[in-house]
């Protein structure tokens, strides 16, 4: 006596095969949806913006006249902003990650800090903008300069850098640090000579991805009050500034007044996308090139 009735199996086979195929098609559709939307977006941006993208546009000063407007100021502003964000997040983020992973004793305090860092990573960016406005712009009376914006952005991506650095440090095999301790190395010597070099590719990858998030972020800077029309180039961290996504935002906002602003926004989007693409490629390159096997 068999438990499986072959006639019943055959009867249901077609329906089973249909469900099998249906599942596959569903998953392909989910993937395609995202891809198609992205393609439409890019196609639209390129067709609108590519004609406006030339050297004069890249190197020119901002202007209300669409034919003379350039985005050098925004490019420089983004660069100055990164000059603050990158070192501040790297030093504070990696330092915190090292402390939490290698020094902090497991216990309530550590899990309290850890939970809060994870929560901070989920705080909406506009809230960081309000924090920056309160602390840096008003309380410390900096005004809406590069330094204030950079510190705000640094706070925004700090949790991401901390968490990704922690993961990179955790990925360094225990047996490497044991070997170092086993020879009489102090903790700091082990951290400096073994753990940090081995985790650096992972730390850098995470930091670059976090930086590219900061480059594309707008809302904290809106709250801080970045000017809509800023003609002079920023030349130090104490100057007023604007950045690429802010420029896109204001041009899009004003495109109901001057139709050409929409094309300028599109051209700026292309520039921003290229910068982000370069940064992400750098992250992938670093990950692949310096990835070590242990």
């Amino acid at each position, binding site marked *: 006596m068999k438990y499986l009735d072959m006639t019943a199996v055959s009867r249901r086979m077609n329906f089973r095969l249909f469900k099998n195929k249906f599942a596959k098609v569903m998953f392909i559709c989910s993937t395609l949806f995202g891809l198609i939307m992205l393609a439409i977006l890019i196609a639209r941006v390129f067709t609108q913006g590519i004609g406006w993208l030339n050297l004069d546009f890249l190197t020119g000063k901002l202007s209300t006249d669409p034919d003379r407007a350039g985005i050098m100021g925004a490019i420089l502003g983004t660069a100055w902003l990164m000059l603050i964000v990158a070192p501040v997040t790297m030093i504070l983020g990696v330092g915190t990650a090292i402390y939490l992973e290698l020094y902090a004793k497991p216990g309530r305090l550590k899990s309290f800090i850890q939970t809060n860092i994870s929560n901070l990573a989920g705080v909406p960016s506009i809230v960081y903008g309000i924090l920056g406005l309160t602390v840096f712009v008003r309380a410390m009376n900096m005004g809406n300069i590069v330094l204030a914006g950079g510190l705000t952005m640094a706070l925004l991506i700090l949790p991401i850098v901390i968490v990704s650095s922690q993961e990179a440090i955790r990925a360094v095999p225990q047996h490497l640090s044991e070997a170092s301790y086993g*020879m*009489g190395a102090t903790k700091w010597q082990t951290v400096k000579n073994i753990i940090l070099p081995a985790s650096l590719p992972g730390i850098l990858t995470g930091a670059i991805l976090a930086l590219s998030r900061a480059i594309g972020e707008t809302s904290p800077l809106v709250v801080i009050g970045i000017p809509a029309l800023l003609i002079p180039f920023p030349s130090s961290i104490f100057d007023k500034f604007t950045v690429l996504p802010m420029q896109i935002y204001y041009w899009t906002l004003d495109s109901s007044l001057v139709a050409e602003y929409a094309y300028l926004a599109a051209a700026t989007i292309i520039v921003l996308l290229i910068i982000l693409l370069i940064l992400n490629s750098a992250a992938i390159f670093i990950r692949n090139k310096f990835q070590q096997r242990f």
Partner: protein
Amino acid sequence: MSTLTINKNNNFQQTNIISLKNVQPRETIYDVKDLNLWYGDTHALKGIDLSFFDKEVTAIIGPSGCGKSTFLKTLNRLVELVPGVRTTGLITYQGKSILDQSVEELRTRVGMVFQKANPFPKSIYENVAYGPKIHGIRNKKILDEIVEKSLRSAFLWDEVKDRLHENAYGLSGGQQQRLCIARCLAIEPDVILMDEPTSALDPKSTLKIEELIQELKKNYSIVIVTHNMQQAARISDRTAFFLNGEVVEFDQTDVIFNNPNDQRTEDYIRGRFG
């Protein structure tokens, strides 16, 4: 050895006295008294009493999970890296409690070779020079000398002298393990702790490491944890048999293997369990 101690290790105390009569007395370098260790609530080492002697190879054998490796790591306090470890008892190294000196100093005198070859992701040269460098040697010429001497002592020099600055991960498993031994020799320790150094190696590399241990014995005291009983019989002067966190028997290796005092040792040696 104290003859007054009356405890469950009575057997071992007696055998030890007998054995000490018929070997030339050597200087004791490590003395372990009533060592207990807990991982959280797990009592992993129970009342260990052992002594290790100068320029001897002591093998520690026993089934998996009996506490051999844990015991080895208490000798250089590496076990303290594991969270939740608690120990009681006294370990003296050359007459001084290991807790009364800085761990860094202790680990400079007591080197360790691990089960899995664990070279640093650096060049062969940098691996060997690592120890001397962290202890403050900066002179390039002296470092070169140390690297060559250590690699020669580990029988590795001829195989790697032309590629000292290549990554250590390019070496074979056996070569990597000898590199780790060379790296350990570079800090000029008095004692070398070896935690199953050949368990991940093929028979040929194993033989090379065993020959190396015989050679090193002239200048170093060696404590080796091994799974391989033939290995213990081949290379060690004394053997301790661990079972469930206790020392069942500790004696000269030929006594342990040919005429063990305890039935459990006999059973383990004959392959009846483990």
